[in-house]
């Protein structure tokens, strides 16, 4: 009860201060009147009565002040009045305020925006129940450099049976199926899962049910679970959807449930998707009875109370048993686990942390700049502060007041920064690469706001404390005698100022070097030749329903007819089918053997990226023939089996030999036991991505060894839309239920493939530019202040005959000394930083001398410019004017 009363009083004191003040004033005055009246009644003359009353009261203002002092929350009033005073002083020097607030806003805004990305991508717990219990459980082969891989279904079954530490384990795979029966045929993201999936994630459906164990059995009825967004977007939120039937790849599935939109698995795909039991999948279903292969991703939830160490020990034991029981599939394989969160965000972590570090440095530079400005101000306010001190303000009181001023500054800067961050996050989200995990979770929310406010508080302390301490420590007599100070400034303070300016150069150098390296790396990355000519190439995907088109012969028949029709169209002659296409599709890396070559040692293998192409593929993509011949239309099933290899495959596996005429065996199910003769060698292609060196590749004629699907490349001078229409017309002339998707220009695909490096290069470049500008203003501030302090010294020098050149040199020397110190300290720091970004670089060394020299030169020139402007002012000093002011 008393607490409630006190709180109420506190709030009243705080929020109805003005009314309370008026009330108090009236109360004391009425007391005075009453006293006066009493005295008159007692027989005094009115003027005596009033005087007597006033003496008894002892001063209306004093009484009011005494009352105020006991009021709850009085300290807030002091704080408010300090802040108000701070605001007033800021208001009186709008130039300073604008520069300081803008600087701080930039620093805090950039930090907040980047933090919002880091938080959403790296820190925010995954949107599942108890996400820290979720792990990705994988098989890995340490002797092959530890490539992490999935499971075969048979091995997964073994894991399920033997495991004691996981409360649940679920296998999953993801691809796309064609959905028909409801309007336009469409391609839908499909998660192919074992029935445990939803219980592992502990998620309940929005409608209907999820999978029962029997849904995963061979021979079960095909069932499907829809995502809420698909249900709303594609089925108009049809309430009677449960129990109805949809067609996936031409096969009816019964809808049994709808998952709420909040449940996303996998996290990275679009929110419109379906889940089907693995056993029903046309692609992976047939693989369930195989023990070889590693294609199933397994996610598990640890039992509560089981440590990661215990779990790993258990997995180790299982992997030993697996290797003993099924050596052909498991010899050399281990089992590992990583937290699901780490698994999802792994690749994004390092670049984001680099960006966060970079933006932190920008804020540091901003703080150094503001500290410098404040020091300058404190020097010119030293008289005011000295006067306060003489009138009895204690050191703590002065520091408190100055800190309150900087807190006001910090708060204003923070608010402006948050506004900038809002805007920045919107800008960022259009820039963010789609491949960055959890991009959709990025927003300025409460936590991010809290971060921004905390940051501005820390920043205010950082830039406010030193100047406040200096100001409070200043020598009273000296300050008063100097009369606001003209010529002398304490050595200490000047040293701190130079230290701050040099520090800014150091930090700017670190950022510029990192940004310069990324920039060079990015320009090398984008100018690298992918090995084919992407100009005018358009790609399109045609998915063949796997139930209807289940045999390779059907794929060939479709591709042949389709290509023949398409090539008959004007402007579409140069079209080819290729699966998988370089950069646009995921590579298919396969093992192969060379006929007649000695057997490899155990565990070693020959691998190459595999591509099945129609005859004119090389012509369309302009991949050069180096020797032998390309495919021609006669290379069909009945003709001798042939292959074309890349230069790199020839170099690696046929050193100093002519590969033509040699034969290869592919480790590929449809092609088991077929010896393929090498008929040609073509140029290398960076099929994995621009940043990866071209690996060995082998091509086979689509008509001999097709892969499912008809992935198309067309070289045409027509617009993308025109090409898309032409393709659709020809596809639908063959089969009206086939969707044509992902029609895009190849240069755009390549562009997207470097979206992540572009993103970090752009941002780091932006931060480095900010750092450069801030450091330049910092130097400018220090030098121009030093010039104005030394005006009469310069006047004396000019009067004694110093030429303008001498003066200019004198000031520039001061500037360059600062810059030199900054660069000398900055160089080793920059080298440390450049090694931190080293792994993000392509074809550029972390201590690239050109970048280092370029950055040093840039900083030197910018520093000289920043010093030149005040130096010019110094040159124009009129000795008469300067000396008169002494």
């Amino acid at each position, binding site marked *: 009860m008393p607490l409630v009363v006190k709180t109420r009083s506190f709030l009243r004191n705080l929020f109805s201060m003005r009314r309370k003040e008026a009330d108090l004033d009236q109360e004391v005055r009425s007391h005075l009147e009453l006293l006066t009246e009493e005295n008159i009644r007692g027989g005094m003359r009115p003027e005596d009565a009033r005087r007597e009353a006033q003496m008894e009261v002892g001063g209306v203002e004093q009484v009011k002040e005494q009352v105020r*002092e006991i009021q709850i929350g009085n300290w807030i009033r002091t704080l408010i009045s300090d802040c108000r005073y701070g605001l007033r002083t800021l208001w009186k020097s709008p130039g300073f305020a604008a520069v300081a607030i803008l600087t701080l806003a930039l620093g805090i805004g950039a930090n907040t925006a980047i933090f919002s990305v880091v938080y959403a991508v790296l820190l925010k717990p995954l949107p599942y129940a108890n996400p820290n219990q979720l792990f990705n459980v994988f098989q890995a082969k340490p002797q092959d450099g530890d490539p992490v891989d999935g499971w075969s279904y048979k091995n997964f079954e073994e894991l399920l049976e033997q495991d004691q530490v996981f409360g649940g384990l679920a296998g999953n795979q993801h691809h796309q199926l064609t959905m028909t029966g409801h309007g336009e045929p469409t391609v839908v993201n499909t998660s192919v899962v074992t029935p445990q999936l939803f219980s592992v994630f502990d998620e309940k459906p929005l409608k209907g049910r999820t999978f029962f164990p029997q849904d995963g059995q061979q021979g079960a009825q095909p069932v499907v679970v829809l995502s809420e967004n698909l249900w709303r977007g594609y089925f108009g939120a049809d309430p009677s959807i449960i129990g109805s039937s949809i067609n996936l790849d031409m096969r009816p599935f019964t809808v049994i449930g709808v998952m709420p939109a909040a449940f996303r698995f996998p996290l990275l795909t679009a929110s419109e998707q379906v889940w089907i039991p693995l056993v029903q999948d046309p692609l992976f279903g047939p693989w369930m009875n195989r023990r070889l292969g590693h294609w199933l991703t397994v996610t598990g939830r640890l039992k509560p109370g089981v440590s990661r160490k215990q779990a790993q020990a258990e997995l180790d034991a299982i992997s030993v048993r697996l290797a003993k029981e099924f050596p052909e599939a498991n010899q050399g394989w281990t089992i590992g686990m990583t937290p699901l969160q780490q698994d999802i965000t792994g690749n994004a972590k390092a670049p984001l942390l680099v960006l966060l570090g970079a933006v932190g440095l920008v804020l540091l530079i901003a703080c150094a700049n503001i500290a410098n400005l404040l020091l300058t101000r404190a020097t010119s306010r030293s008289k005011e502060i000295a006067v306060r001190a003489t009138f009895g303000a204690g050191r703590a009181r002065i520091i408190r007041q100055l800190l309150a001023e900087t807190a006001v500054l910090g708060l204003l800067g923070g608010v402006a920064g948050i506004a900038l961050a809002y805007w920045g996050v919107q800008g960022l989200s259009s820039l963010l690469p789609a491949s960055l995990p959890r991009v959709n979770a990025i927003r300025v929310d409460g936590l991010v706001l809290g971060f921004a406010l905390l940051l501005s508080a820390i920043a205010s302390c950082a830039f406010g404390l030193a100047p406040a301490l200096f100001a409070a420590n200043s020598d009273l007599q000296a300050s008063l005698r100097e009369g606001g100070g003209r010529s002398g400034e304490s050595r200490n303070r000047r040293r701190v100022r130079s230290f701050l300016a040099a520090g800014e150069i150091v930090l700017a150098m670190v950022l510029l070097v990192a940004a310069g390296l990324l920039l060079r790396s990015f320009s090398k990355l984008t100018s690298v030749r992918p090995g084919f000519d992407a100009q005018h190439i358009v790609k399109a995907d045609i998915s063949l329903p796997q139930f209807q088109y289940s045999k390779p012969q059907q794929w060939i028949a479709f591709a042949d007819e389709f290509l023949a029709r398409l090539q008959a169209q004007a402007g579409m002659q140069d079209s080819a089918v290729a699966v998988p296409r370089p950069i646009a599709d995921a590579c298919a890396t396969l093992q192969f053997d060379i006929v007649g070559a000695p057997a490899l040692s155990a565990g070693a293998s020959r691998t190459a990226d595999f591509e099945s192409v129609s005859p004119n593929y090389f012509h369309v993509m302009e991949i050069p023939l180096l020797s032998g011949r390309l495919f021609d239309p006669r290379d069909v099933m009945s003709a001798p089996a042939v292959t074309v290899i890349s230069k790199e495959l020839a170099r690696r596996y046929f050193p100093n030999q002519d590969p033509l005429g040699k034969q290869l065996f592919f480790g590929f199910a449809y092609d088991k036991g077929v010896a393929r003769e090498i008929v040609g060698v073509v140029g290398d292609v960076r099929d994995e991505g621009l940043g990866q060196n071209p690996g060995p590749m082998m091509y086979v004629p689509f008509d001999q060894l097709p892969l499912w699907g008809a992935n198309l490349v067309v070289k045409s001078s027509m617009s993308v839309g025109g090409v898309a229409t032409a393709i659709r017309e020809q596809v639908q002339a063959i089969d009206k239920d086939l969707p044509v998707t992902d029609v895009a220009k190849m240069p755009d695909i390549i562009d997207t493939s470097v979206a992540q490096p572009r993103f970090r290069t752009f941002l780091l470049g932006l931060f480095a530019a900010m750092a450069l500008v801030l450091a330049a203003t910092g130097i400018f501030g220090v030098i121009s202040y030093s010039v104005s302090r030394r005006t009469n010294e310069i006047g004396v020098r000019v009067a004694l005959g110093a030429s303008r050149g001498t003066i200019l040199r004198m000031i520039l020397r001061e500037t360059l000394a600062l810059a030199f110190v900054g660069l000398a300290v900055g160089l080793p720091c920059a080298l440390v930083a450049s090694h931190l970004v080293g792994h993000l670089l392509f074809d550029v060394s972390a201590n690239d001398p050109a970048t280092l020299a370029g950055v040093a030169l840039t900083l030197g020139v910018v520093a000289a410019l920043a010093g030149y402007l005040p130096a010019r002012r110094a040159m124009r000093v009129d000795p008469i004017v300067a000396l008169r002011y002494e």
Partner: protein
Amino acid sequence: MKAEPTTLLQGTLDLLILRSLVAGEKHGLGISRRIQQITSGTFVVKPGSLFPALHRMEEEGWISSLWGDSENNRRAKYYRLTKAGTKQLEAETARWGRISWAIAQALEAS
């Protein structure tokens, strides 16, 4: 040991103010005069200590205030005991009784 007498005095002043309000609501001067009267002039409470005490006690919730007209039709702020104030008065009275008894004992013993 400066705090002891202050708290004692403060307690005394609170007790006296609360006591003076038992007979009904009063304005500041009224309270001051009533205290003077009931202590036979021993305590004269000056505005400099009266008003801070009144405001503090109001914030504690022991007394409440309202504006009214004085006997000569002047606006004045009146204070009255609240329920919590009555309770506080009882507590203070008991405490004061103990203290004065103890001090009387101390003075008699020797």
